[in-house]
């Protein structure tokens, strides 16, 4: 993690191999010494207070944003559709659907080397794969790293996981037996993706708390000191490395073993690539889906009309889920500006962030009628909750199945429920937004 990173090398200027063959990355595996050196080199922490002007000084971890980001985005879209901040070493925030889409599709000028805004920048040496392939990979390597995952997450593969997912949901609900108030985020939504992904990867379900700790540290701890963040990465790799090694020695019937056996361009991918992709699946699959399930339950708890309509006519559910994904899209991604570049009159500097707000794009009146209203029958619904362009969420079929099954089982068990205390609902801070405390009365 160099302090003042050079712009990442692009395939065009470095003559990187066309399909991006696996590179020897064994000397890049994170160790305490390497990470300590990176922290020592990183720019000093800066203290920023609360935001007064989101157009010139936005911060996605600001209290006002965490509490209710929608009016902030709506105002920016009208007055300053590509906002800027000096925080995090410089970042831009487009709020129009057209700009979010254009930037997501422009992999020349915007690199995915890091997709989570923080004070530091990730090591350039890991390009073209990046720290968590394929989400941090750029073309041409990206397509190959992504293809490793697509068939195991295809609609057909996902259908096979539905019965076990349903069984988990029922188990979680059975454990609530006899209670009047339950926390739908803590006792229900958060467990479902953890169990599904642990099962796919072949990791023990009992490590669920550890997974959630990693995810929390990486996605929600963005304003924590770098030392603490680095510690989480280290723990994650220390946890995963022996899991990968055990399967190198003796393959099992799981996704980690399948990744170990996979090749790019006729060469096996490196164990460190496997570890980073597994880390991505843990990070990308848990907080996100938990948030989507939680936000849907939150909406239904607070909108009895919508809840009753779906209970009466369950065929409405898939359309309603798309609307919850649009209106409460949980995931904002980031890009780094590759080289100095002017976009729509904005002088973007190399290594500045662009916060790619799919949630703000989903509320753009140019793209959606009555964007602020949640209309569970909305169709068509061209929302961008799973991203746009080449990095479209590889887990979207899995996520949609989990959300649907989770809601079907919840509504079957609790056809009537309401928020126990609307003021006690708490939302996560950072680039993944969802309820983290959601007490509901289910009696």
């Amino acid at each position, binding site marked *: 993690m160099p302090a003042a990173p050079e712009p990442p090398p692009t395939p065009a200027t470095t003559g990187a191999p066309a399909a991006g063959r696996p590179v020897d990355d064994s000397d890049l595996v994170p160790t305490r010494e390497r990470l300590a050196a990176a922290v020592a080199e990183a720019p000093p922490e800066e203290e920023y207070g609360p935001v007064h002007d989101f157009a010139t000084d936005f911060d996605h971890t600001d209290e006002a944003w965490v509490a209710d980001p929608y009016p902030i985005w709506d105002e920016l879209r009208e007055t300053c559709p590509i906002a800027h901040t000096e925080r995090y070493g410089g970042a831009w925030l487009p709020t129009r659907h057209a700009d979010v889409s254009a930037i997501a599709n422009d992999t020349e000028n915007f690199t995915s080397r890091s997709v989570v805004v923080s004070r530091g920048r990730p090591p350039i040496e890991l390009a073209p794969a990046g720290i968590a392939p394929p989400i941090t990979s750029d073309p041409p390597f990206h397509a190959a790293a992504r293809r490793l995952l697509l068939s195991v997450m295809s609609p057909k593969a996902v259908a096979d996981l539905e019965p076990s997912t349903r069984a988990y949901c029922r188990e979680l609900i059975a454990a609530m037996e006899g209670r009047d108030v339950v926390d739908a985020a803590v006792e229900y939504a958060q467990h479902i993706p953890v169990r599904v992904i642990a099962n796919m990867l072949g990791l023990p379900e009992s490590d669920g708390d550890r997974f959630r700790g990693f995810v929390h540290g990486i996605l929600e701890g963005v304003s924590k000191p770098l030392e603490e963040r680095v510690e989480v990465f280290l723990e994650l790799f220390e946890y995963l490395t022996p899991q990968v090694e055990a399967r190198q020695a003796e393959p099992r019937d799981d996704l980690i073993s399948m990744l170990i056996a996979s090749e790019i361009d006729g060469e096996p991918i490196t164990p460190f690539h496997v570890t980073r992709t597994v880390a991505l699946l843990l990070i990308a699959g848990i907080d996100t889906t938990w948030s989507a399930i939680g936000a849907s339950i939150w909406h239904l708890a607070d909108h009895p009309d919508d809840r009753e309509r779906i209970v009466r006519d369950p065929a409405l559910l898939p359309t309603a889920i798309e609307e919850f994904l649009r209106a409460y899209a949980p995931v904002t991604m980031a890009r780094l500006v590759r080289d100095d570049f002017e976009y729509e009159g904005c002088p973007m500097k190399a290594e500045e962030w662009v916060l790619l707000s799919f949630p703000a794009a989903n509320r753009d009146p140019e793209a959606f009628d009555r964007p602020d209203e949640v209309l569970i029958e909305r169709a*068509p619904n061209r*929302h*961008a909750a799973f991203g746009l362009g080449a990095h479209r969420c590889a887990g979207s*079929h899995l996520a949609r199945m989990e959300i649907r099954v989770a809601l079907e089982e919840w509504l079957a068990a609790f056809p009537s429920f309401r928020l126990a205390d609307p003021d006690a609902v708490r939302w996560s801070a950072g680039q993944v937004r969802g309820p983290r405390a959601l007490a509901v009365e289910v009696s």
Partner: protein
Amino acid sequence: MRVRIDPEVCQGHGRCYALAPGVFTCDDEGYGEVIGDGTVAPGDEDAARLAVDSCPEYAITAE
């Protein structure tokens, strides 16, 4: 009515084959494909139109 998916633009969101399963299907990686030559049976036209208008990547055209 006849539909076509531009494979350069399709990113496999899967809206088309979820919304109009009589018109679209998917390959092993989840990318959309038209069934047959893309000719839409009269009973499937509404579903096909909904799919066209729901594709997040604007990858489907109808004529």
